[in-house]
């Protein structure tokens, strides 16, 4: 078996007296779509935040490309090529899509102007339009504020931003929850295409048909622990639901 690209080992995370993660394991390999599923409150979002530098686990280890790492900030994770599409999208609604795509990574004008911090807005717009186009995302105009876009379009902007910058791992926390059928298909397509670039795509979803349609593997989280792992081939909807609810008792190591 190849070395995992990203691995969580026995992560513990406590909020007050809620134990969101109780020794959670998780593994993602390069070039796969792995679905992370579990009931509400199972700890999926918490796990993602610990693996993307947004928050730090109280105990446990994170391994990246065969080495142990401490992800102390989102910026650190981003430098490693790890991106997240957050459940709440995390867009600056008053800025336009291009500004959001480049937020925190702005392109500067060359020369003296750049030295003064002047943005290269035209280049950012052009590159953003290209990035959106590549994903088959149509936006009315790169100059429109995100706040005036529809839910689906906002989701597209958030997805496009992560895809544009992720070189290793991309977490998508319920990326299709707000979407209609057509847009949902498009996002699934984007996931497949990103996977084919050799990136690990981690999909968090409550939609089992969607999981079965796009994932190569599934890992199941329950009450802050990984309780099952499946290869998609041969797995049934009942297996997944059983593992999530605890009806089906599978050990952590099961493949």
């Amino acid at each position, binding site marked *: 078996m190849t070395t995992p690209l990203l691995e969580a080992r026995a992560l513990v995370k406590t909020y007050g007296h809620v134990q969101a993660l109780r020794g959670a394991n998780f593994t993602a390999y390069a070039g796969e779509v792995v679905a992370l599923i579990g009931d509400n409150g199972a700890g999926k979002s918490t796990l993602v935040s610990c693996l993307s530098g947004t928050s730090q686990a109280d105990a446990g280890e994170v391994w990246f490309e065969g080495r142990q790492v401490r992800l102390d900030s989102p910026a650190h994770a981003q430098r490693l090529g790890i991106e997240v599409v957050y459940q709440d999208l995390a867009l600056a609604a008053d800025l336009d899509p291009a500004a959001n795509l480049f937020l925190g990574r702005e392109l500067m004008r060359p020369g003296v102007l750049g030295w003064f911090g002047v943005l290269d807005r035209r280049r950012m717009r052009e590159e953003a339009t290209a990035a959106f186009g590549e994903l088959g995302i149509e936006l009315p105009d790169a100059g*429109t504020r995100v706040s005036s876009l529809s839910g689906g379009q906002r989701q597209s902007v958030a997805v496009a931003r992560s895809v544009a910058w992720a070189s290793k791992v991309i977490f998508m926390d319920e990326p299709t929850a707000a979407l209609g059928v057509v847009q949902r298909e498009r996002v699934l397509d984007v996931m497949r295409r990103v996977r084919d670039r050799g990136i690990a795509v981690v999909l968090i979803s409550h939609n089992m048909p969607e999981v079965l349609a796009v994932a190569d593997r599934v890992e199941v989280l329950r009450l802050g622990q990984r309780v099952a792992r499946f290869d998609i081939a041969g797995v049934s909807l009942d297996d997944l639901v059983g593992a999530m609810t605890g009806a089906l008792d599978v050990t952590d190591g099961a493949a």
Partner: protein
Amino acid sequence: MSGTSKALPARPPATLASRLATTNVLWIFVVLVALVLFFTAVQPNFANPLNIRSIAADNAALLVLAVGMTFVIVSAGIDLSIGSVLIFSGVVAAKVMLAVGGDPRDPSAGAADAGWGVIGLGILAGLLAGLAWGVINGLLVAKARVPPLIATLGTLGMALGASYLLTGGTDVRGIPRQLAGTLGFGLVLNSVPWLVVIAAGVAVVLGLVLAYTRFGRYTYAIGSNPEAARRVGIRVDRHLIKVYALMGLLSGLAGVMSLAHFSTTTISGHSADNLAAIAAVVLGGTSLFGGSGRVTGTVIGVLIPAVLQSGFVTIGVNPYWQNVAVGAVLVAAVYLDQVRRRARERA
């Protein structure tokens, strides 16, 4: 207007949203022009260059404050302390000029005859004093997480109290005549007051900074969604400290300008500066909720009350009507902004 933005999401016409943003500024510009035309029609004397020059000079310090306030409000903050910081900075500048440039044989004259070395030192001290209060505000807001309204209400009291302690409650006199003669009421090229040149320079430079630089973009992003900014690696705390520090520095500059203009500290005269600056920013189309706004709007927002005030005087209406009118328009502007926001969130 709420109807339009509600209809947007289905298929937003390309430029409607951006046009909406600019029409705000355009609209109040039209109001400004209409006011000027109206007062000129009623009393042609209104438009004479001397009157215009004095309107501009009297409002130069306010413009400097309001430009800083634009950054603060765009970042979804507020700074109530600016008037007190202005006073404190003026007091510090005056005290330093007197201490360094005072004539020991003639204490009553103060530093009236002091030269540019002394003046420069005093100005520097005043700017630094303002900057220091700004940094304190920034630390309170960004690091101590005290809501800006309370943090700056606290420093409002502290800076004012400190000014009274430093002066014993009497205005400092004996400001260098050279300072008053140039910065205070001197003219550049015999036509434009120095105060106006400085205020315009501040507005142009910081207007460009807000619109075209990374500093400006981070200010919008933080005002729009601080969590989103944090997640993409923007150092939100550090940026907010810079924004409040800038506001403090500009309050210091306004303090120096006011010191030069009146040839004395005006410790009892700035209790409503914060309201005037906030009103100007909001009239200029900047959202009190943060995330949007422009310096161009703020400039017009400073000019509208100024023109009203002066206009009422020239046509013989009690100028206190200006306060009533601006107050009403301010509430209406915020109300409309709120309606617009709510419509957008529902969508």
